[in-house]
């Protein structure tokens, strides 16, 4: 009896900290204009709990960016339900959503002349007045974001002088400064060498563990993602699988990720190899 009761309380507490941040039910995504609707993916079902690192993988052109655009409200969904923090995404105003969700996009910022500090400070925009003036609290959060991403020493440098790896960290710092529970990143590891790819993914992992952030990122680094992420979304033409990397390997989700003739997935090592 006693053991059972304890188990139950444990379960409840676990449930509290495992608060659901994103929930998709029968979601269809794609592009729609007056003439026609092109569905990119349908019957998408998954829910992500707070503090998890989720990697989205799939081959080129499968619709990873479309999915991320839909999840960040840059693209309207076609049908089904998409909830952020138990509220439909369409019910949020732009400002309210910017308090829940921050993004790191593949597109480079329009201006290259911003300093690191200026760019990261822009992340505070949803929280500042019409003049964008920063309070001490804002400054503390910006400083913390710079420290978390190891950028404090570079803060007065102009962005056009930074390397790709440093720039990626700056974009992540800006998202951190926006201070949202959920961060969505579109291919944060492209153009980086192995060392910096690993560094970025480790940074994301650290943020989920230490800051309890929920992070969803798309990537082509399947090996890295299998090793580090808590959950993975695997997009194939047939469906979108969502589970922990180990379960996905067991289910053979990675075997159908690419056409089999050139690369095959080795379940033992968790890596792809060229045939």
């Amino acid at each position, binding site marked *: 009896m006693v053991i059972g009761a304890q188990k139950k309380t444990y379960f409840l507490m676990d449930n509290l900290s495992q608060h659901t941040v994103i929930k998709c039910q029968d979601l269809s995504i794609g592009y729609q204009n007056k003439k026609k609707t092109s569905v990119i993916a349908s019957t998408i079902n998954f829910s992500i709990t707070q503090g998890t690192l989720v990697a989205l993988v799939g081959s080129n052109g499968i619709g990873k960016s479309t999915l991320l655009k839909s999840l960040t409200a*840059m693209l309207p969904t076609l049908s089904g339900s998409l909830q952020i923090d138990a509220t439909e995404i369409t019910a949020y105003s732009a400002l309210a959503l*910017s308090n829940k969700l*921050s993004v790191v996009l593949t597109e480079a910022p*329009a*201006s290259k002349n*911003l300093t690191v500090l*200026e760019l990261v400070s822009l992340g505070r*925009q949803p929280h500042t007045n019409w003049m*964008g003036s920063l309070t001490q609290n804002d400054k503390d959060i910006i400083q913390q974001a710079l420290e978390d991403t190891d950028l404090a020493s570079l803060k007065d440098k102009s962005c056009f002088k930074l390397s790709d790896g440093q720039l990626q960290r700056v974009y992540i710092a800006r998202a951190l400064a926006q201070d949202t529970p959920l961060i969505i990143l579109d291919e944060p590891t492209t153009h980086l060498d192995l060392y910096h790819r690993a560094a970025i993914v480790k940074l994301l992992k650290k943020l989920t563990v230490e800051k309890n952030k929920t992070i969803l990122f798309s990537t082509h680094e399947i090996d890295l993602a299998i090793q580090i992420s808590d959950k993975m979304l695997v997009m194939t033409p047939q469906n979108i699988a969502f589970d922990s990397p180990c379960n996905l390997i067991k289910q053979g989700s990675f075997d159908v990720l690419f056409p089999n003739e050139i690369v095959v997935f080795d379940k033992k090592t968790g890596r792809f190899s060229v045939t």
Partner: protein
Amino acid sequence: MMLQKIHVRFFILLSLLLVVLVCVNISLGSVDIPALEVFNSIVGASSKSSWDFIITNYRLPKAITAIIAGGGLAISGLLMQTLFRNPLAGPFVLGLSSGASLGVAILILGAGAISGVFSSFLLGPWSLVIASALGSFIVLLALLAVTLKVKDTMAILIIGLMFGSLTGAVVAVLSYFSDAEQLQQFVFWSFGSLGNQTWQGIVIISLCFFIGLLLSVYSAKSLNALLLGENYAKSMGLKIKKNMLVIILATSILAGGITAFVGPIAFIGLAVPHLTRQFIKTSNHFVLIPAVALSGAILMLVCDTIAQLPGTVYTLPINAITSLVGAPVVIWLLVRKRKLIF
């Protein structure tokens, strides 16, 4: 992003430079007036009435027009560079001035078709402003509509140039069918001139300038967000359509209103924001807008001082001087930095 000490010092320096240049600009011309007399006359304690007359009726209005035109065009250039994410954007390059020209051409040359009382009513200063601002507003809207479809910044420049050619062609057709007197009026307008402004005209452009300035300052936070691009700006809670409309409105009031009175003036809008960025290391529009306005006013005063050829009775078209000064500046910046950034 607070005002830093270095910015404050920069603003004090610019303001002092502006005051000195106003005195120099007023004192030089076909008749040289000692700088001290200029000061006395403005304060209202002048000794010589002919100097007093020249100053209050010719030189002071011209200096004020130069300050407002330079400042306003520079701000509109800054807004367009951020809005179109393009370092080469400016009211002249993107065809805003051509749009304003078209508006004015239709008004001046078209008014010939309707003779009598109605045409003199049409040619009042307010209708000139409205026609010109409307012309540049339409060009801007068309440009923005294209920008939403075409994401290539190079394409926007080309489209701006095409709009320039198109409006130029329409103006050519209009001038072909109009009589000599109206044509002359239009040609003089298109040379650009800071002089011969009535005090009423100055009140109107000042009004355009302050409305444009207010709208720009109101938009400064969104302009800062737009430095990251539209998608980032949206993700930070910006109501993108509304804010872009306010920015476009500010730009067309500034560029259109000023062009209506002083004619199309090249290079101030394009070059001044880049020059300012050389001296002030920030991308914050709350600092850049006043800095660019001051620098624009200063450069315009310098150009005007050169244009009136001190010591002679000749005055060169101001548009020629701004191009002579502005084009080398842009080339020099490009060569030195290898690329223009904003």
